[in-house]
């Protein structure tokens, strides 16, 4: 191989006097410092938000009856802040530090770097304002409304992408190192996921409806949701591992070859796994089985990565005892290993039948985010602090204390949630000797968890305490920085535009057939070395790996009629119900309530008929949920009278002792904007929901009429005077809840019974 950076030919020719163009450059560390500080600040906010809502689960009065302090609105804030603000800034810190050094080039453009930084922070601020105010698309980890989604696309796909690829193109090191492969895959796949999952029809300045409905929306959402875990919380952090761990351990990665296998198998397999979030739901069984199989296969590359990371420390283990950076990395990678074992296990259908909708999932996720993402980030920050602030770390002892306090916190969090999940899962499915549910009252299965919720809170508190330690360490290290940062000038030869690969490895195997020789040559990976020198071609192959799986799963879901059966008696929502559904989405009800009765006896016994795919065809977006902090609501329609709901919103505990649902008294006080009904119906019609031609014109009148009727019924049932409540928001939500899951019980119009799907 010969290029100006590292070619033997050029090296030789330079000694012969021919010119090798040497270029001088500096690294932009100011941008890395910015991203690192943002990582800490947003991390602290994300963790404190998590701590606050964890306390609310044990003590629901902590919402103080204030809408923007309520669990359903703050939980998306917590998850978005943890993933995209803390995780995102951590990723950018790693990328901006390591890519410059691995490419021997300053970032492509300082302007793009700064636009990237400030654009991303602006997006986070916009999220932190809109989510508590109830502006949400109602899809987990993709809650942000359409203007913010567009900004994300511009900043991530456009600015970050241009800056990253631009740097790769003007690099001075021929080979792009494994960390950069992971960055490329992350950037590219997140672009694809974000754009396709965020396709909406706009219904107002901060209101939109997913173009997908029901089963398709669930499918695309968890294709996105799972791969947000894969390509936002896994691959970039693996890139971080492959760069910072060898740096901190001062030895190369254990097996470069294993990293090639690790990378491609992970990128190819991960993307199939999304449907494991939808086991036993109305998703077609083939899709969920496929998701399960690929999830189990995913165990293999994940552990390949973990082993590669841990074995990098061979011969350096004694340093783990003294170096907090390595401590964080070792435990972070171990948590990666544990959660990538637990994940495939939870994706097995029979395990999932127990774990799904319980806190086990929450425990699993936090082992990954706190243990893997958190500890890898903290390790990286402790590694960077002395280098970026060009002084010694203020206190190694405080960093070590952070490590121990944080680890204890994670273990308390994980074990308590594991216990809570298994406890509740078993209680839900328990039958007594007469064949009835052993715990028919859902609240019984919740009150049992309260002690574990307090342990979780304490564990989370310890984790936050550790982060505060880090904050002090960061501040004190920063205070002892030099008056002016030294900016070393580096020198490297310009990359030769002509790439002449090294001569390919020729197999020296004897007495084997030609095929064996070819296989031998293939396994020496010379072909991959060539890819490593061509970032654009590399990116295209990553796109192919990701797209194949996506298309294999997505196309049948769209095209095969049998995958989306319709039911004749399922009709579009009335205008008032649509407005009520908007409130359901805005308040984040889906965060605690599922709308998906699984076909299991204990579920049909508890909730009623299991859910059918055809029942969700008008659900833009789907609201199946992923956790039952409260009971399933798909068959709530008609199960309680209007007054029950009215009083329940006012204060759930006056109806249901021991309930941990927060009060929603503002729904009883605030007036509904009936004027919005027309725009909602118009948007739904545009999406293909079959409303009558004049439905938009009559929407507001219909909504008011239905609200009056419900108000009168509440009065008859012993509630407040109809006239005083007929404009309140709660009526719309009641209308929606009373409609839920009732259509399949309705008498068919004429000849239409359920249209059985052709298979």
């Amino acid at each position, binding site marked *: *191989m*010969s*290029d100006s*950076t*590292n*070619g*033997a*030919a*050029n*090296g030789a020719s*330079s000694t012969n006097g021919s010119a*090798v163009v040497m270029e001088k450059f500096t690294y932009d560390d100011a941008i890395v410092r910015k991203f690192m500080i943002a990582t800490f600040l947003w991390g602290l906010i994300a963790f404190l938000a998590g701590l606050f809502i964890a306390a609310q689960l044990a003590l629901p009065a902590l919402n103080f009856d204030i809408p923007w302090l309520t669990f359903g609105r703050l939980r998306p804030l917590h998850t978005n802040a943890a993933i995209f603000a803390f995780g995102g800034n951590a990723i950018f810190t790693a990328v901006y530090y*390591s890519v410059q*050094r*691995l490419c*021997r080039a300053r970032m492509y453009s300082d302007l793009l770097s700064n636009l990237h930084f400030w654009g991303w922070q602006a997006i986070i601020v916009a999220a932190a304002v809109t989510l508590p105010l109830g502006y949400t698309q109602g899809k987990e980890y993709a809650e942000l409304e359409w203007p913010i989604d567009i900004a994300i696309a511009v900043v991530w796909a456009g600015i970050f992408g241009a800056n990253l690829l631009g740097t790769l193109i003007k690099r*001075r*090191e*021929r*080979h792009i*190192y494994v*960390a950069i492969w992971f960055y490329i895959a992350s950037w590219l796949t997140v672009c694809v996921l974000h754009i396709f999952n965020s396709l909406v029809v706009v219904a107002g300045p901060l209101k939109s409806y997913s173009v997908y409905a029901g089963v398709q929306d669930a499918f695309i959402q968890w294709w996105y949701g799972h791969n947000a875990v894969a390509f936002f919380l896994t691959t970039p952090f693996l890139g971080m591992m*492959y*760069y910072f761990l*060898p*740096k901190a351990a*001062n*030895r*190369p*990665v*254990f*097996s*470069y*070859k*294993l990293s090639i*296998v690790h990378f491609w198998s992970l990128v190819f397999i991960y993307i199939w796994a999304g449907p494991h979030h939808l086991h036993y739901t109305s998703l077609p069984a083939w899709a969920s089985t496929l998701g399960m199989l690929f999830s189990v*296969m995913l165990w*293999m590359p994940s552990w*390949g990565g973990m*082993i590669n990371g841990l074995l990098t420390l061979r011969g350096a283990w004694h340093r783990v005892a003294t170096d907090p950076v390595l401590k964080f990395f070792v435990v972070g990678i171990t948590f990666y290993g544990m959660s990538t074992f637990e994940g495939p296990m939870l994706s097995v259908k029979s395990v999932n039948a127990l774990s799904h909708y319980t806190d086990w999932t929450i425990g699993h996720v936090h082992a990954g985010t706190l243990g893997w993402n958190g500890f890898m980030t903290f390790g990286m920050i402790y590694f960077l602090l002395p280098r970026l602030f060009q002084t010694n770390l203020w206190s190694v002892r405080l960093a070590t204390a952070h490590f121990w306090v944080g680890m204890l916190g994670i273990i308390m969090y994980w074990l308590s949630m594991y216990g809570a999940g298994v406890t509740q899962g078993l209680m839900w499915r328990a039958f007594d000797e007469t064949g009835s549910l052993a715990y028919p009252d859902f609240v019984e299965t919740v009150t049992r968890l309260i002690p574990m919720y307090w342990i979780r809170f304490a564990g989370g508190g310890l984790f936050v305490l550790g982060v505060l330690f880090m904050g002090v360490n960061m501040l004190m290290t920063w205070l002892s920085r030099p008056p002016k940062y030294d900016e070393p000038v*580096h*020198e*490297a*030869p310009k990359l030769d535009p002509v790439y002449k690969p*090294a001569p390919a*490895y020729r197999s020296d195997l004897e007495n084997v057939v030609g095929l064996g020789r070819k296989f031998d040559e293939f*396994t*020496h*990976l010379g072909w991959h*070395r060539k890819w*490593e020198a061509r970032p654009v071609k590399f990116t295209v192959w990553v796109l192919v790996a990701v797209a194949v799986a996506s298309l294999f799963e997505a196309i049948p879901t769209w095209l095969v009629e049998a995958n989306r059966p319709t039911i004749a008696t399922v009709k579009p929502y009335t205008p008032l119900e649509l407005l009520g559904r908007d409130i359901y989405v805005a308040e984040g009800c889906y965060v605690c309530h599922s709308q998906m009765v699984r076909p299991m006896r204990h579920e049909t016994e508890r909730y009623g008929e299991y859910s059918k795919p055809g029942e969700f065809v008008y659900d833009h977006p789907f609201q199946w949920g992923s956790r039952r902090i409260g009971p399933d609501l798909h068959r709530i329609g008609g199960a309680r009278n209007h007054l029950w709901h009215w009083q329940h919103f006012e204060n759930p505990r006056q109806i249901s002792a021991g309930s941990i649902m927060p009060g929603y008294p503002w729904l009883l006080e605030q007036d509904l904007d009936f004027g919005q009904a027309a725009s909602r119906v118009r948007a739904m019609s545009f999406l293909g929901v079959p409303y009558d031609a004049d439905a938009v014109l009559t929407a507001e009148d219909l909504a008011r009429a239905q609200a009056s009727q419900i108000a009168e019924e509440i009065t008859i049932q012993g509630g407040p005077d109809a006239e005083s409540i007929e404009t309140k928001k709660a009526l719309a939500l009641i209308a929606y809840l009373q409609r839920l899951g009732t259509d399949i019980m309705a008498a068919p119009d004429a000849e239409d019974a359920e249209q059985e799907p052709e298979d």
Partner: protein
Amino acid sequence: MLRDVVSSLDLSVYPTIAMVLFIAVFCVVSFRAIRAGKTGEHDQVAQLPLREDVPELGSGEAAR
């Protein structure tokens, strides 16, 4: 027609074959990947993160 043919076949041995294939591939890949870590042919690229602070000429793969 096709459905009748497929449903009359006994495919119960397939999962076992698939599992054997899966484990075999797993073992071969693991063995080769870990063994190859010691052959030294990837040493130059694996060193990339460690040597970037001291850019040097002729330090590339072909220099070996």
